[in-house]
């Protein structure tokens, strides 16, 4: 809760900082803000509280996911240095929008009332619509913003429609009240509850980029400036999946049998489309977009399993995925900027010119592919364990096969970096970004070697 207030204030203060002539102070200030917010978030650990007539409530679940989101933002910002150097005239506004989006994201994991969920989604989404178009002179960025806005607002409307139907069926906005009312509703005679749930589910599925509502993802990711893409695929996705899980567990845990077939169908479809779509890509950035779809599918396995392992598995996987994705986008930003393309070919010979960047990318790809020694492996292991405890063997077979497909496209980058040659110059990376990349690698390996530190937090 404190983090919501702090980040809102910081966002506004930051706008004023933007009036100062020097852009150089901006990034340190925002990083400081985020560090404070992270500290404030962690103070709530093991101190569950509720606010505003229980519209918002913090517990370890919300604190855990808030921490993942704030930490992700903290890791992403150092890569925006080239925007500072370029004297981008609206940089302060973009940073503030990121902070506001973060506020929305935190509301999405802290809500106890559907209205707060809706507000959170709106705050986050509207910020992201603008961010997507922040590269104003790039036609692709404009396209991304437009597509994201049109589709996004449409789906927000669907969520709102669903919330209205849920209110009609249960007479409540509070999760606990909905859960209580839902227990007494027979879905056969009163379909309104399930209709409402389905509409909300469709809306949230869109927000996390799961199939069949994933079509915006590749185009939007491709057009958005890389640093902000990395924000989209980590912070926005984490908020979405955590909100999704919270909604299903707190309000609709009792009607698990009703929504299970739909969710499982979405999960399988997402895994298939994400992984198979990624194979066909020649652009690294579009590959990462499809990869983010596939990871939405893996995350949803926790939802289909829906047992006492799910929450921890979800948190662990979100963190492992966010760290690896930020590292991948971070390297991609430098390589893409220096070599003028986001294709795999841009990575040719990177192992020779920039061993560090290549190594970071390798660790990130291994983690996303779920190979041991990295956090991604244990993330997948925990998710699959949760599902296997429910005897969902066939779902895991699909997921395992898709993981094998994943290795194929993640390794294309590694092959390009180490096994293909190109006459390219060394890429310069500033010290702060280098430090961030190393921290990300250390964290990924730490999660992959001593997973016990992170695996049982909730």
């Amino acid at each position, binding site marked *: 809760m404190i983090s919501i207030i702090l980040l809102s204030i910081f966002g506004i203060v930051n706008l004023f900082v933007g009036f100062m002539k020097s852009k150089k102070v901006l990034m340190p200030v925002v990083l400081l803000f985020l560090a404070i917010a992270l500290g404030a978030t962690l103070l709530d650990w093991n101190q569950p509280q509720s606010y505003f007539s229980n519209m918002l409530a913090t517990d370890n679940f919300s604190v855990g996911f808030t921490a993942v989101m704030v930490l992700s933002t903290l890791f992403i910002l150092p890569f925006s240095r080239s925007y500072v150097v370029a004297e981008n005239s609206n940089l302060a506004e973009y940073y503030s929008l990121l902070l506001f989006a973060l506020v929305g994201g935190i509301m999405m994991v802290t809500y106890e009332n559907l209205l707060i969920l809706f507000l959170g989604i709106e705050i986050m989404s509207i910020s992201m619509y603008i961010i997507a178009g922040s590269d104003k002179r790039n036609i692709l960025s404009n396209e991304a913003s437009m597509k994201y806005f049109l589709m996004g607002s449409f789906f927000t409307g669907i969520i709102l429609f669903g919330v209205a139907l849920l209110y009609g069926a249960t007479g409540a906005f509070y999760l606990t009240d909905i859960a209580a009312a839902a227990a007494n509703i027979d879905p056969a005679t009163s379909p309104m509850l399930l209709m409402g749930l389905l509409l909300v589910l469709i809306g949230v599925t869109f927000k996390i980029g799961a199939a069949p509502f994933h079509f915006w993802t590749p185009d939007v990711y491709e057009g958005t400036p890389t640093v902000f893409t990395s924000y989209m695929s980590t912070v926005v996705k984490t908020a979405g999946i955590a909100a999704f899980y919270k909604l299903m567990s707190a309000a609709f845990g009792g009607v698990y049998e009703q929504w299970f077939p739909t969710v499982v169908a979405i999960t399988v479809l997402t895994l298939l489309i994400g992984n198979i779509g990624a194979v066909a890509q020649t652009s690294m950035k579009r590959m990462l977009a499809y990869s983010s779809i596939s990871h939405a599918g893996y995350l949803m396995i926790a939802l289909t399993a829906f047992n006492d392992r799910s929450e921890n598995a979800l948190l662990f996987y979100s963190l492992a995925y966010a760290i690896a994705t930020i590292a991948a986008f971070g390297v991609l930003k430098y390589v893409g900027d220096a070599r003028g393309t986001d294709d795999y070919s841009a990575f040719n010979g990177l192992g020779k010119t920039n061993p560090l960047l290549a190594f970071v990318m390798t660790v990130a790809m291994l983690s996303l592919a779920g*190979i*041991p*020694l990295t956090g991604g492996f244990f993330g997948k292991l925990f998710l*699959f364990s949760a599902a*296997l405890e429910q005897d969902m063997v066939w779902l895991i077979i699909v997921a395992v096969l898709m993981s*094998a497909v994943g*290795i194929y496209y993640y390794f294309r980058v590694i092959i390009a970096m180490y096994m293909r040659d190109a006459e390219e110059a060394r890429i310069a990376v500033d010290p702060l970004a280098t430090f961030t990349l190393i921290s990300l690698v250390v964290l990924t390996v730490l999660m992959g070697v001593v997973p016990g530190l992170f695996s*049982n937090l909730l």
Partner: protein
Amino acid sequence: MLTALIILWPALAALLVLLVKGDSARKVAFGAALVELVLGVWAWINFAPNGSTQFLLNEPWIANAGIMFKVGIDGISLLMVLLTVFLVPLIILSTAKHTYEKPSSFYALILFMQTGLLGVFTALDAFVFYFFWEVALIPIYFIAGIWGGENRVRVTFKFFIYTVFGSLFMLAAFVYLYFQTPGTHSSEEVAFYQLVLDAGTQSWLFWFLFIAFAIKMPVFPFHTWQPDTYTTAPAAGTMLLSGIMLKMGIYGALRWLLPVVPLGVSQWANVALVLAIIGIIYGAIIAIRQQDMKRLVAFSSISHVGLIAAGLFTLNHHGLQGAMIQMLSHGVNVVGMFFIIDIIQSRTGTREIAALGGITQNTPFLSVTFLVLLLATVGLPLTNGFVGEFLLLMGVYQYNAWMGAVAGLTIILGAVYMLRMFQRVMFGEKNEITQGFTDLTFNEKAVLVPLVVMVFWIGLHPNTFLSLSEPAVLKLLDVIKR
């Protein structure tokens, strides 16, 4: 603690090697591998061959899930650990005449792989085993992919996808078994051994586990990655793959397949044996037709591994002990063979059998060591190959006389392709390529002499090693026959 030190030291040394620039990386790596050899021998000296697991380390790893970081050494593990710590320094030394690009990365990867291999051979928890199983794979992928020969990208990628695909099935089986353990669940070896599962479940679990191990060995028909990968990888990579990594598959089957799903094994042992025996004959026949020496030895390796795998699935004492001793012998012999091929290639620039000839005339040392290793590979009495093949064939014969007879063809076919190769490469008239062929240098002798010593040590006094693994194998047989 000793086990942890044995596992961790190469990884730490790898980090050290990364800091060293240029050619001295090899020397540092070699020094580190010698230290590791001392550690391994130290474990051997302090080891009491009584069937128990010693030097145990049991620390919580993922505490809430009941997954322990449990490693230790019993007789079976000890032989594999000794093989690994013995071969890695020789493999590093064998690269002396090559100048690799980025040598520090190359040698760091070799040492890092050693950590993975030793972890596999000492793991006593299924997830620890799987963890190290994949950790061993990543370095060899890069070694073969970056420093390999032509087509390396395609070939190593096929190898990687193939093996990971297999091991994902193993992981799925492990997770399933983990949930079958009582209480708060455990993935320890002993917990898996105590499981009582019905025959139908064990039947599919067998295939999930068998595929992973069969791909690694490789057993026919899962071998298609092997000849290309062995041929393409740099000499050191081929030695690591064939000398040590291949044993991961056999060891894995011995420790995590046979005792875990004994009913599944008894249902499918016949099929596995037939596949293994097809591999013996198939590998040998194709080896006869090879023009490239490295490829020839690669196919002969399929043949030899087929016999070891056949010995495993006989589930009798001779078969398992034969597999143990043959794992050592095969490791020693195949590394020696690949090294000699590397020597010939680096002197003449070719591995084509037809292009060579008359090498014996200038090279007494090379000829003798080559012949010793070659005859050991064929399985001549007094050499290490004889002990292993004899025990294995006896095991297979006990299981089924007809199978034993067919498997026995390996000795005849082996003699055919090996001696043909030796005759054409080493005897005959010198030609312009082999004209100035020089004998072994000091470094090369330093690699080959220990290997030849091992050939005779195992060949003349196999009990040094058989007695180490005997109690552990008997104990394992008790678990399998439970």
